Every structure is written in C-alpha cells, then in structure tokens.
C-alpha cells in the first residue's frame, strides 16, 4: 500500500564498472626488500634490539612481582613495528594497536623509562600508572593506544582515518591487530566502511600464528589473512614479518597507495612470538622445537646483525650497541622500580575532563 520512495545510491567502489582489485603483491614481489642506508639499517637494528631487551627485562620484572596483571611481550615480532613505523610521517600519521603494545611505543622513540614505569604502575608512567601494560597512549606522537578489547582498535583506527580524511591533512592511520582479532565481526564492519569511504588506513594483521593458545588453523577458515579484504575490494599483501627490510618495503608500497586516495590496504605480516600469549601462559600448545626453529632460522634481529657484519661492522661494534641498550633498559627498570606509586588523590582525577 505504501512504500518509501526510492533513493539514489551513494557513490561507492561498487559503482566503478572498471574495478579490478589492484595487486600490491606484484609490486612487492618485483622488489621485496627496502634499500636501507647504513644508518637506517643500524637504526632498525638498535630499535629492534631495544624492544627485545626491554621486553626481556619486563618479563623479569613480572617474575619479581613488580609488574602485575596481564603483560604481553613483543619478542620475536620486532621487525613488524620497526619496519612499518619507520616509514610513517612523524607528527602526521596515527597509529593504534591492541594490548601487545610496548614495541610500538618503543619504535616511536618514546622514553623507555615512562613505558616501564607504566608497567610497574607508577606515577611517572605514561598513563600516570592508571593504564598499565595494555593501555598506553602518546597523543604527542599520535599513538592512540594500547587497547585491551580484541579488535576494538580496528574500528577506532577507522575513526582516526576518518579524521585524517575529514581534516584533509594527508595523513594515514596504521591499525595493527592480530590473527585472533581478525575473527572479530567489527573488523569486517570496518573493512566495509573503510573501503566504501576510501579511508586512508593500512590494516596490519600481525599473524603470530596463535590467538592466545589457538593455532590459526584451528580458528580460521581462511588462514591466508591478506585475502580477507577481497570481499570488500581491499587489496591484500602478504609480507614476511621477520624481515624488517621486507616489512619496510611493503610499507612504502602500501602507504603510497593509501596516500594517493585509493582507499585502505590489508597487510598480513607473518611473524612469531617467542614468549607465551601473556606472562601467565605456559605455551603448551606448541613444541619447544617449533619455537627453537624460528629463533635459530628466522630471528629478525639476527638477520639484520648478519647484514651489518657483512657490511663490515665488527662483532665488537655490535656488542657495544647491545651494551648501550642494556644500560638504557636497566636505567628504565630502576626508574620504574623506584618511582613512587600514584598519589591516592589521583584515584578520582581524569574520570571526566570537565567539572559539572
């Protein structure tokens, strides 16, 4: 009897009759590794090593009871954050990730002291001790967390990308999530809107092979995660996340695509975490041999070390770098251990911004 009048369809990728999914993979296959300068390569090495030593120390502090709750270490995955974030435009692009977030913050060059002090829940922590390991932010660096709900950062990242588009600032959002989060419904809700609206966002799946204790093959019908954007016309890239130069090269290609206004990219970085899901995970769902094999043959830091030595750096040079990093981490740990806890008066601060 009555029906709503028909309305015109909005402009969308589906309206383009000539649409063909652009293969960024071909571009990557044509040239897989980034030509880093000697300085850049050394920076990558130092950043990755800092993350590793920091995380090792965090594991120790957890064992001593100085860090509480959940603490998810990034050991093994260092090349992903370092390779990608080194390609960002500072003070412009935004980054958001899940709870395994220490490495991403260190890759920004944020002072390890304030990160470690947050892990120990101290006043000097980057969130004044009120966030903890999973909830750290640095708006100064346009790092938007640090989110404890699996997959939430994907939709929030879509919003950050919307803000870049809205403000026409030329920036992009880098939204990291894991193979576990990749099965959350809101990820696909976000893929749909991001592609529909051509949002400037790079979705990065850090596939470390296990969603907590569940291997990808036990949880995912499609384990080639980079294909999962196809239904939304989002080009996918499969990247060796254990090779910082390949990650960086992939970042160059993906960022260019996004900055040209061609919509989102889905990048799967295959990687591996050496430690358990969190500190309380005995990791009995995989064999020691499997972990050992990755450490011996695919370690991202060892790979760069090898190149550095081939380029003429001596073992002693590299030992000196390690020594310097260990010192920085030790100082951060001491700082985190000796800083005071937040004043009890902080309990009721920051709940709301305004007074009512």
């Amino acid at each position, binding site marked *: 009897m009555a029906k709503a009048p028909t309305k015109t369809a909005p402009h969308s990728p589906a309206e383009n009759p000539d649409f063909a999914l652009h293969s960024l993979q071909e571009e990557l296959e044509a040239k897989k590794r980034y030509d880093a300068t000697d300085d850049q390569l050394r920076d990558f090495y130092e950043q990755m090593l800092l993350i590793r030593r920091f995380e090792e120390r965090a594991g120790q502090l957890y064992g001593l009871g100085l860090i509480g709750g959940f603490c998810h270490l990034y050991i093994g995955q260092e090349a992903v954050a370092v390779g990608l974030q080194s390609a960002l435009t500072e003070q412009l692009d935004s980054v958001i990730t899940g709870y395994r977030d220490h490495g991403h913050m260190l890759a920004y060059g944020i002072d390890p002291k304030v990160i470690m002090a947050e892990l120990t829940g101290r006043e000097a922590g980057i969130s004044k001790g009120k966030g903890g390991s999973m909830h750290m932010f640095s708006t100064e660096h346009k790092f938007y967390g640090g989110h404890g709900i699996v997959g939430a950062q994907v939709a929030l990242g879509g919003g950050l990308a919307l803000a870049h588009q809205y403000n026409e600032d030329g920036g992009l959002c880098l939204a990291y999530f894991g193979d576990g989060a990749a099965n959350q419904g809101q990820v696909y809700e976000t893929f749909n809107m991001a592609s529909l609206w051509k949002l400037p966002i790079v979705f990065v799946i850090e596939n470390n092979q296990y969603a907590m204790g569940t291997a990808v093959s036990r949880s995912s019908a499609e384990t080639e995660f980079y294909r999962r954007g196809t239904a939304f016309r989002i080009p996918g890239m499969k990247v060796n996340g254990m090779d910082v130069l390949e990650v960086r090269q992939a970042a160059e290609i993906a960022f260019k695509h996004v900055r040209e206004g061609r919509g989102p990219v889905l990048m799967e970085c295959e990687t591996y975490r050496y430690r358990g899901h969190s500190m309380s995970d005995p990791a009995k769902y995989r064999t020691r041999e499997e972990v050992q094999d990755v450490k011996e043959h695919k370690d991202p830091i060892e790979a760069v070390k090898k190149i550095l030595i081939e380029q003429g750096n001596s073992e002693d040079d590299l030992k000196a770098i390690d020594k310097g990093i260990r010192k920085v981490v030790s100082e951060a740990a001491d700082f985190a251990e000796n800083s005071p806890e937040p004043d009890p008066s902080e309990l009721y601060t920051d*709940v709301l911004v305004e007074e009512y």
Partner: protein
Amino acid sequence: MAIELKMPALSPTMEEGTLAKWLKQEGDTIEIGDIIAEIETDKATMEFEAVDEGTLGKILVAEGTENVAVGTVIAMLAGEGEDVSEAAAAAPVDDVPGEGKDVGRPEGSGEGSEAEIAKPAKKWGVKDPEIPHGTNMATVTVREALRDGMAEEMRRDERVFVMGEEVAQYQGAYKVTQGLLDEFGPKRVIDTPITEYGFAGIGTGAAMGGLRPIVEFMTFNFAMQAIDHIINSAAKTNYMSGGQMRCPVVFRGPNAAASRVGAQHSQNYGPWYASVPGLIVIAPYDASDAKGLMKAAIRCEDPVVFLENELVYGRSFELPELDDHVLPIGKARIVREGADVTIVAYSIAVGLALEAAEQLADEGIDAEVIDLRTLRPLDKETVLESLKKTNRMVIAEEGWPTCSIASEIVAICMEDGFDHLDAPVTRVCDEDVPLPYAANLEKLALIDTPRIVKAVKKVCYRD
C-alpha cells in the same frame, strides 16, 4: 458504492500525518498500484498506493493539509459506472493544533488520557534559572529542538559531524536529522551501513583523532551491539591515559519504550549507562532542555550518551528564543514547585509526573516535580533539598525497577536524607518483565499517571 480512501497509518507511532501532495486529480482513472498521493508521517514521506481501481472522485483533504488523523477519509474512489460526485459528504478534517500526536501509548481509563499528554506542556510557574527573564518563547517540537541544537553547533564548529543509519538522504529514521544533509553536505552528515559496532568504533576513533562526532543510533536498543565502544573505548580512555586522550563524542537516539514494538525495541538504558564512570548521561524531557542540553553535550569534552524518547519527539513545548541556548549538564530542574511531596522523574515520566501533580492538587496534595535531566552526574543536591522541604518522595521512571535510577535515588535518600524522611521513598516504574506486545499487556507493564498518584497518596498517608 464508492470506496472511501482513508489516511493510512504508516508507522507504529503515527496518529496523523501531512497530506503532502496529490499525484492524481479528481476524475483521473486509477489502476491498482498507482501512486495516488504522498503522505508525510512522523518519520518519512511515504507514497500512498491504490489497492482498488476506479475513478478518483471528490478529494476531501487538500494537499498541504497538516495533522490529518489516521483513518480520516481523504478522497472517494468511484467504481465502474458509479457517479464520481457521489462522495459528497465531506469527512471532517481533524483540525487539532500540530503538537505531539505521535504519542502512541493509550492511557485510556479516564485518569490521564492520551489527549491530555499530547497537549503542549504548561509552564508551571517556575522558570528555568538559565533563561533570562522576559525572553520570547517559541513553540517547537522536541524533534525540531534536537535538530536545531545540532545544526547550530555544526555551524559553530567545523569539527562537528553526524553519522548513523539513515541520517542523511533519508532525513533521519525519526526525522531528527531532517534538513542537515542539505545544509552541511555528505561530508558532515554521513549515512552508515547497518553496522552499529563498527560505526560506533569509527565515531569514537574520530573523536580520539580530534573531531566532534554525533553518532546516532536509530534506537538505543541497537546500541547494545556497540556498547563495548561506548563503555570500553569512549568512557574509560581519558582515565586510562592519565588524562592524555579525550573522547568528545555524543551517542544519541531514541531510548525506552515506543509503542507496540515489543520487547527487543523497548528498553530504557538510562540506568545502564548512568552506572559507568567516565560517561555523561543526559535524558531530557521538553524541547528547551533537549536543545540546550544537546548543544552542551556537543561542546562537552567528555563522551555523552544522550537519551531521547520517540514518544516525546512530536510533543511541542515552549523554547526560549536565544541566540545560544546552552544549559548546564548535571543540573536537575524543579518543573513544578510544591510543599507536600516530591516526585522525581526524567524523560517521558516527567510528563506523567506533572499530570499526576495536577490531579493530586485537586485532592489537596501539593506535589513538587523534579526533572533530573542529567542522569550522570546526578544532581543529588536538588533532590535532597527538595526532600528536606517536603519530607516525602516518589520516583517515577519509565524503565525496570531493579537497579534503576529510582533505586539510586532511594539509596541517596537513605544515605544522605534519612533524617528528613517522613515516609519510605517509593519507586514507581515499569513492571519487571520484558515489554509485551499485546496492547492490554503493554499498558499493564508501563508506568502511568494513576500509579504515580496512588504512590504519592501512600507516602502522604492519604490512601
């Protein structure tokens, strides 16, 4: 016999509509399926389609006529061989003033009829302290007040935008965003897919990124799909970041029971959101508060849940004609002064409480009525001051009683007002059941004026 063409009911809450346009004229041949007219409802412009064939006879309601009641004969359709002029008897056009006619809930039973609720609210003699004396008042619907509040803020601040289902091209599922697309364009009035979790997250992320999003939920029932972002992402971030990361987003839409839409579409989420530190929760009743608090919500640096009510959208109230009508968040308002007993209410229940107060006045009980307006932070002071004066209190809430705002007010009175109590503080809420569909059961389940009157008499020991 000619067929009567009647004004159709085109939505669950529609009681009248505007006959926007006749697409057929008297004498035109009508085939089944022809579009005869366009009718504007409370929600959208709809096409009126012929289900019988014949010749259009007398048009009884001219195009452009507003407030045509459902069931009014709008034209006659002559069958084959019939005289088109047969339909001479003009059906009376329901010519009531255009306020609040989408109030769908029948009150029935003599006390507190629907028609009375639909009237423009009277001013009860107590002026809102925020409105300067002598300000000119216009009469507008809550729907228009909300829209105007948003539009003014969008003009004022480029960062403000609206997103949600059907907010742009469709002009709003409940027409609250009507006209915004025309003025502000698709960049700032964004139609989303049906994907609440996703777009609530995108809106929240955009706020983190420095914008001022207004996220419309078609109703708050659907926001349950998105509640993770409202609570975990929006409400907690400022605290978790030690004050670094703000999230100035407004989540808005109709909340609580509508009319005959059943359990999944009828729930008051006020108590849910009001229990969460880090959120501001606003639930206005009249047009002035709707506009003034909407503007405040958009300017607010904190995340706001703004709970509207579908049954109130069409009601008209006085609205002060001010250049910039912004009201304070967190302040209740005494909407009727009284000495004997206090009725605390918010949202649609304010109308019921005011009506109860009028009835009680006839029986010699002078009730004070407080509209909470903001549910979090709750204005304890106004509640306790009133209790101090009247010593008796009833809370009227359209929502479940268990763990309700009413429960919270009871606790506040026990903890901070015990010495002023002359009778137990009493809750009048909906029944503690999922809202039934059947008209009689729905009526039984929902709060109404007689129940408030009864509770007030009880605390006044007058029953």
